[in-house]
């Protein structure tokens, strides 16, 4: 009976469909990664390459003076010295996220950074892993072309641990005009002043090293800047703000230092002067945008297509000439105008709810760029009060998702225009249960859930 109903032509038609589906599933099985074998969403809705820098930068924008970054101000600005109280044993109830286990993990996450790149996270340059000088091979490797150099350097960066890598030209505008550096040890008079609580606190902690602000003097003229992004652990960041989240952040910094040092070493071995830097020397986000790694978000961070804002950034300055990448956009700017989840989840209300502006409200904001100016004073003060850092704005961002096909699909559709669509997507993200912050359960689950 059945045979009579299906003609030969239809049978072959169905067989063709079956063959195609079978081939697709076979590729899935062979590759072992369904995400890789599923439709390549980046090809369906690709990011747009831009010729110019995709953020409006006016003449009012000058080089930032590192003295005025919120981290430098911790050294000289009494109003921001909350964290100098330090974490004290037993003064925070051991709730999930702040237990001895969690704190140990946080310390472990930061270990490599604090061992080979101490101070870099607050912007102190030219130390250990991020040393500007290093032994350079006298025999210089000749690349076939700037394209060849870029391809091989990117391959090396990926191999050495970078999650994303892009290359851009050196732009002095994004370098700090002056940088914070360790100077001489404090004088006895200064130590005495600190002992007497001149910082306005009863316990000012151990004597600080003296710092000084100097103008940077690189040992060579950089021609290219390699920008590397390092993914931070999704589940770890999802516990924000807690010590587990601090561990994920610290591990990001550790990977920055390790891979940055390795990349600088790779290029020196090839005969090109190079040095790596983390948060020091220059503003990382403009360089990352110029290198095509992502877009600027409302939370003041780089939003990548692959990981959202859940990345840390390191740079390698080099005299090697390479083909430069172009900036890319994929709808973050428009999406952020409608989505305010980072601002809503910020415990210190440091992220603005309004439209982008050309200047911020504090001396730690560098004016002249059209963007959402985060209030670093409020943000930093909360860190001090919280006894660890905070990544609520990363956790809550709808672009912060693990690398699975359905999240890629939704992220790609964010590039479609329309404020109502973006608003709805942001709301649906919340209804679907993503981006919760201050979640004690997430801290508890972190240790229980299998990878």
């Amino acid at each position, binding site marked *: 009976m*059945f045979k009579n*109903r*299906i*003609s030969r032509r*239809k049978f072959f*038609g*169905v067989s063709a*469909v*079956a063959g195609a*589906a*079978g081939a*697709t*599933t076979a590729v*899935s*099985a062979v590759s*072992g*990664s*369904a*995400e890789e*074998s*599923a439709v390549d969403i980046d090809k369906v809705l690709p990011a747009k390459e831009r010729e110019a820098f995709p953020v409006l930068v006016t003449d009012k924008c000058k080089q930032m003076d590192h003295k005025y970054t919120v981290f430098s101000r911790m050294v000289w600005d009494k109003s921001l010295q909350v964290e100098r109280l330090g974490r004290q044993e037993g003064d925070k109830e051991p709730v999930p996220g702040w237990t001895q286990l969690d704190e140990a993990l946080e310390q472990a996450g930061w270990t490599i950074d604090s061992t080979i790149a101490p101070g870099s996270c607050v912007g102190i340059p030219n130390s250990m892993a991020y040393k500007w000088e290093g032994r350079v091979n006298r025999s210089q490797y000749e690349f076939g072309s700037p394209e060849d150099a870029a391809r091989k350097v990117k391959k090396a960066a990926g191999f050495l641990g970078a999650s994303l890598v892009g290359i851009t030209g050196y732009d002095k505008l994004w370098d700090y005009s002056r940088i914070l550096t360790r100077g001489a040890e404090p004088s006895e008079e200064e130590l005495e002043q600190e002992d007497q609580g001149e910082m306005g606190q009863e316990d000012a902690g151990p004597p600080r090293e003296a710092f000084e602000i100097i103008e940077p003097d690189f040992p060579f003229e950089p021609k290219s800047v390699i920008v590397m992004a390092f993914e931070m652990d999704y589940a770890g960041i999802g516990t924000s703000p807690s010590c587990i989240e601090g561990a994920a952040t610290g591990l990001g910094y550790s990977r920055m230092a390790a891979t940055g040092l390795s990349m600088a070493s790779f290029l020196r071995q090839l005969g090109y002067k190079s040095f790596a830097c983390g948060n020091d020397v220059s503003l990382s986000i403009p360089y990352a945008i110029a290198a095509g790694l992502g877009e600027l978000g409302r939370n003041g961070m780089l939003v990548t297509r692959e990981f959202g804002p859940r990345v840390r950034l390191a740079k390698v300055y080099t005299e090697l000439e390479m083909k430069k990448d172009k900036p890319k956009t994929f709808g973050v700017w428009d999406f952020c105008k409608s989505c305010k989840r980072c601002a809503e989840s910020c415990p210190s209300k440091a992220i603005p709810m309004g439209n982008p502006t050309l200047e911020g409200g504090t001396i730690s904001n560098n004016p002249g760029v059209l963007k959402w100016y985060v209030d670093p004073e409020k943000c930093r003060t909360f860190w001090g009060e919280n006894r660890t850092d905070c990544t609520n704005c990363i956790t809550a961002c709808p672009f912060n998702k*693990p690398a*699975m*096909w*359905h999240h890629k699909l939704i992220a790609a559709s964010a590039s479609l225009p329309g404020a109502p669509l973006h608003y709805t997507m942001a709301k*649906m993200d919340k*209804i*679907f*249960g*993503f981006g919760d912050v201050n979640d004690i359960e997430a801290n508890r689950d972190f240790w229980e*859930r299998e990878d």
Partner: protein
Amino acid sequence: MGMMWFCLGGILIVCLWCLISWNSRRSVKLSPVGWAGSLITLLAFLFTVAWSVSSVIEGEAQAAGAGLLFFGGGTLLLFAVTRRLIKRSN
């Protein structure tokens, strides 16, 4: 995940086979609109299953449930409309 795509591929083939065999019966004929509706409903169903299974694998129970509610609800609506269209045309 690989197993999920394999199963979805299998469901797709079985459903297409059923559609074609159903269409070949003289009593029910699918118009172009009926074909389009059936295929869209089928794809919406597969998307719902894929979303929910992926969310369960990811450990996001709420996303799995919301996926069933929103995408599954939409699929049911599509199914009802398509069924009515096919019935009317026959």
